[in-house]
């Protein structure tokens, strides 16, 4: 979880102290915006490239035989700070994970902050601190950024967009269309933690729980897996739409069927209980630190063993197989021996009435 922002450690806080909240002037392009960048963002995210504050970052990348991975994501989570994390670390890990799902090591991030007038400066500080800590933990440099301010009522406090660039080492061939019959389907840990942590603090649905978001960077886990075998065919981080959406997207891209056993899917008891209470299916609940891997069935044990050696993969489980039947479709075997199609979710997850 992000530490509370310590206002006393700011460098030259004077210009900002006049405004305990974001005002339109912070996005005007003038001195106030410059102060915000120089006193809030730069000290926390500083590096040689960002420090130049150029219109674009110039990156020295030695490609050699590597390939580039490039991904962007926007973060609009509500509330901004939630059990287990905040929009700050989410914005780093979300894009880092998207890049890592190609097998790449993430190197650089851009950061665009869209601030709503009235956002408390202290909250922005807290979130930016979490953002910086996440970038440092992940080993990515934030090399370019942007700040905009929108009128009160035109944003939800703070939106963040990040774009990431990473390097895919030679020999790694991971793509959503690469699943083959007989491949093993592995999930890296318990599902539904993030979605239920958010749900537990939403207005109107608050319930007491100790569920924390699983927000975490997955690139090291991926590196550990690739060190065990290069025969990893597909990776997907199971964010919105949950495990069900990730499996459906892979089945459709690869034109194969996926069959898995519901009872094998790792699930925290508290998440299971919360899902039961709200009438939600954990297969559809969002994750922010879990991946699905489809790997050559013959090396599944090696990959699993490697995952188990990493803190974020200790509960990694083989849940199913890639099959030739029902191409494009995901079918689960239920606990009582029946089967059902696990389709894409229709829209927003809605708590059931009873």
């Amino acid at each position: 979880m992000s530490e509370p922002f310590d206002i006393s450690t700011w460098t030259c806080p004077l210009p900002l102290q006049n405004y305990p909240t974001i005002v339109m002037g912070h996005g005007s392009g003038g001195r106030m915006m410059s102060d915000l960048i120089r006193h809030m963002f730069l000290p926390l995210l500083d590096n040689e490239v960002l420090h130049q504050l150029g219109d674009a970052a110039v990156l020295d990348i030695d490609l050699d035989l590597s390939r580039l991975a490039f991904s962007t994501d926007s973060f609009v989570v509500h509330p901004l700070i939630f059990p287990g994390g905040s929009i700050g670390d989410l914005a780093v890990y979300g894009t880092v994970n998207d890049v890592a799902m190609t097998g790449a090591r993430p190197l650089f991030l851009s950061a665009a902050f869209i601030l709503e007038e009235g956002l408390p400066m202290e909250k922005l500080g807290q979130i930016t601190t979490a953002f910086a800590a996440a970038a440092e933990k992940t080993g990515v440099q934030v090399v370019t950024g942007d700040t905009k301010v929108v009128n009160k009522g035109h944003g939800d406090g703070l939106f963040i967009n990040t774009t990431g660039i990473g390097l895919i080492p030679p020999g790694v061939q991971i793509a959503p269309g690469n699943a083959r019959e007989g491949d093993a389907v592995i999930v890296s840990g318990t599902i539904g933690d993030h979605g239920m942590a958010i749900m537990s603090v939403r207005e109107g649905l608050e319930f007491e729980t100790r569920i924390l978001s699983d927000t975490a960077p997955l690139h090291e886990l991926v590196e550990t897996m690739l060190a065990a075998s290069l025969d990893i065919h597909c990776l997907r981080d199971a964010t919105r739409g949950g495990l069900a959406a990730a499996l459906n997207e892979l089945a459709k891209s690869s034109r194969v069927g996926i069959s898995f056993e519901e009872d094998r899917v790792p699930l925290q008891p508290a998440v299971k209980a919360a899902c039961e209470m709200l009438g939600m299916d954990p297969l559809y609940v969002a994750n922010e630190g879990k991946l699905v891997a489809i790997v050559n069935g013959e090396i599944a044990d090696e990959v699993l063993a490697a995952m188990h050696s990493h803190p974020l993969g200790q509960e990694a489980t083989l849940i199913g197989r890639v099959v030739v039947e029902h191409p494009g479709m995901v079918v689960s075997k239920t606990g009582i021996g029946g089967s059902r199609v696990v389709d894409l979710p229709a829209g927003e997850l809605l708590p059931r009435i009873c």
Partner: protein
Amino acid sequence: MKYLDEYRDGELTRKLLSEINQAVTRPWKIMEVCGGQTHSIIKSGLDQLLPPEIDLVHGPGCPVCVTPLELIDKAIALASQPEIIFASYGDMLRVPGSEKDLFSVKAAGGDVRIVYSPLDALKIARQNPDKTVVFFGIGFETTAPANAMAVMQAKNQGIKNFAMLVSHVTVPPAITAIMESPQVQVNAFLAAGHVCTVMGYWEYQQLVDKYQVPVVVMGFEPVDIARAILMCVKQLENGQAKVANAYARSVDEAGNLPAQDIINQVFETTDRAWRGIGTIPLSGYRLRAAYHQFDAELRFPEIQTINPQESSLCISGLVLQGLKKPNECPAFGKECTPQSPLGATMVSSEGACAAYYQYGRYAANLDQKEDI
């Protein structure tokens, strides 16, 4: 998880299924009344594991599905007003009204909020004294006690900016209507365990006496369902018709008396229109005169004239009476999907059509080897 996993036990379910197999000798049509049960049956794949003689037909017990179009349109009219905060159970937001749904109202700037309990709507009212909070009070006897409690608390605490748009329905009159319908041939009913937790099952004795059909109170997990079906089949095969309780860990004959008491204090029975079915006499609750100040239809009389006509394409009424299976509808999976539902049965995850779509749409295509 305790009290859950043991009722999802595969071995015990298969044992009960094999007993059903041994007991059954001829075809029976058995209706599970509640949409939550339909959902559970399809989700666990239990329907595929039953012997072919047993035809489960899905009943009218989905509160989202049977809430009449008129009430949805009234909800939409209220939610569109700038001085109103409209609070609802989540799955009502996607139910199509005659022109749009509550999600569209929200997108157009209406203040529509999802709550898990009517007491949370009351909290929103306390926090927003300059607005009126209208809660969509729908559901069967299961949601009625909490909804009654919210209205009672609003009165006791003097919260004047709270109102309820009431569309409550009750189970026994619906079963009577189904048995009175000349087209319907249901041999037995699986009663909704949570409704009986509140109301008990004493009301069903007169239905059993009058129509000579077994009624078995059923829970929601695979073991509960298989056990209830077995008890039902045994009665049918022996020519018996009794009320039986296969959900004794939650239900007794009298039910939850304090819950019934609060329902009776706040609500009285009234004729109620059921979407797709029509008006069933004395099948709903409305607020008693002492609580009329909280009745949204009385507080906002301009909505009383809203009276739309149902689309002719949707056969949800036939589905809700067990006359048609969802996949027998020509629009099923084509014009009508969960993304763009024609009728409410395709919206709620308890709706029979949505349950079929989500879990069984491609059942015919599945590899037979996967089935046990």
